[in-house]
């Protein structure tokens, strides 16, 4: 099934406003739809995870961090691809 570029939504989960803001501008400039969430919880509450799209996820977010959200999505049989981002250059710290 061919998925139209218009049907794809890029989801951004980051607790930092400026990161959400700058990323959404950048994604929009590439002609893609973008939706932003400030925490993993709001993302899970508001997003139908089976829809086509991609998740850009910050590793370090309060209450439920990026890896925990990934586990949760796996539990819910989500196939949504996840791109992790982190302000921390070190993988050890980020996780």
């Amino acid at each position, binding site marked *: 099934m061919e998925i139209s570029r218009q049907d794809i939504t890029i989801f951004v989960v980051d607790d930092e406003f*400026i*990161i959400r803001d*700058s990323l959404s501008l950048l994604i929009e*400039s590439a002609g893609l739809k973008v939706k932003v969430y400030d925490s993993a919880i709001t993302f899970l509450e508001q997003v139908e995870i089976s829809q086509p799209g991609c998740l850009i996820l910050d590793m370090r977010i309060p209450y439920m961090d990026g890896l925990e959200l990934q586990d949760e999505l796996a539990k819910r049989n989500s196939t949504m691809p996840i791109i992790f981002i982190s302000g*921390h250059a070190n993988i050890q710290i980020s996780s």
Partner: protein
Amino acid sequence: MDTNKVKQDSSQCALASLKKINSDFITISQEVIRELVHEFKSYQMEMELQIKELQKDQLQLLNSRDQYKKLYDCAPIGFLTLNEQGYITDVNNAACELLDLSKIQVLGTKLFKYFVAEEKSRFDSFFKQLINSTGEQKIEFNLQQSNMNTIAVACRGCGGYTDDAKKEVLMMLQDICDQKKAQQAINRLNEQLKLKINAQNTELLLKNEKLHDNINELKHSKQQVSIREAKLITIFNAAAEGIITIDEKGTIESVNRAITIIFGYKTDELIGHNIGKLMSAQHREHHAGFIQNYLAKDQAKILSKTREIEGQRKDGKLIPMEISISEYKIDDKSYFIGMIRDISKRRNKELEDKQHLAQLARVTRLGLMGEMATGIAHEVNQPLTAIATYSQVCLRMIEVADFDRGKLKEVLEKTENQACRAGRIISRMREFISSKRQHRSSVDIRDLIGNAIDLAADECQQFSIECSLELLDSPPFISVDEIQIEQVLLNLIKNSIDSLSKMPPEKQRKLSIQMYLNDSSQLETRVKDNGQGIKIKEQAKIFTSFFTTKVAGMGMGLSISQSLIISHGGQLRFSSIEGKGTTFYFTLPIIKS
């Protein structure tokens, strides 16, 4: 007496002549008779002459006797004549008066009976003595008058013979009552005088004793005083503090040894000189009218308060001193005692301590920053990431031919903002690490709390710590070194984060910063967590340098924090329950408006 003798002689002659006549009578011739008659006649004439003379003598004698009798009766002294048996045979008026009886009543009575009972026997023996001798005897008796009054009499008596050669006693009685009374009065007076003298004597003795006591006491006091004086002089000279006394004019009265050591002058170079000699030129000028001013206004400002002034040594070197002045008065004149302490050593020590503390604080700051470097890096990284992304957005936008200039401007402004934010974080870090800023400024502690929270925000986020602030809406300002107090806050926050990070993930991790005004009008700030708490056996040691519970800690954080808070006039304390959490709270004096 002579007359009687003559009579006797004449009659004897006559008798002898008659005998001669009787024997020769028969043979008498006429002639003889004539001769005899003649002789008789001449005898007769002679006799008549003699009789006349005798009569004349007798008259003279009677006159003299009357005179004597008058004298006897009227004499002021009582005269009595007693016969051998003690009966009164004669008495004069004075004697009757003494006995308070008439002459008739007295005569023929025994004198014996007029004496008081207890003296009768004494009189008896006196009387016997008089009878048996002719010498004069003297004695004093008490007579009892008919009216039962007793009178004292001096009695003088002598034995003698009556005309018919019987023994008799002549006695003189003299009333000595007045004399006695006078004597008694004199005796009484003497007695009184004696008593008085005795009393006075006793009094004088007592006074004397008291005086002796007083003298001893004074001696003792004097001794005590000299002991005390010696002690005081020793203390005075041994005191580490300089002690100096001056009069109202500022003239130095005395100095102790410490003064000579502090100022480098000898004692005699100071006594009698003005106190200004020990002051720096600046203080000297200021001090000139100081005492007069004080005395005039009677202000207690300079007294009983320790002040810091600058003194000048003999070699001209200025020395910081602490001085406290007290006043004492002798005879309404004021004197002042100054206690002077050379605080140059202390000053140096304080300076050293301060420098040391500052160095330590800097090291701890570096340590803190090091520990938090990753978080801070993230803090800076965020705006940098945003800048990079915004820049990409812009680049992409301008590739379109008719791009939205308004939108581009908006994104560029956001980029600029983020660049400024990164710059602020960097400069805050630099400020925090550098120890150059030491001055105190009037600040709102909420700003400092905000800064500290900013620096720790990343770590709070990392460990899912819910950070809440309960601050006063308009807290009073405090005068502090911002960086130092920020360091304390950051340190406490960092400790809380450290403790909270070790808690199991399911537990809600809470950090809260609260603010109160406490009873003593100090601003109290609390940093409270619900972390592990501090073990009781560790609680006593946590403010000790180099004590740490952290694997990589230096053990300086709390020790430095406490020093910083104390140097601001506050206190840093804590309460902690193992397993429940810890609250650190510190107070800072507020600026009074």
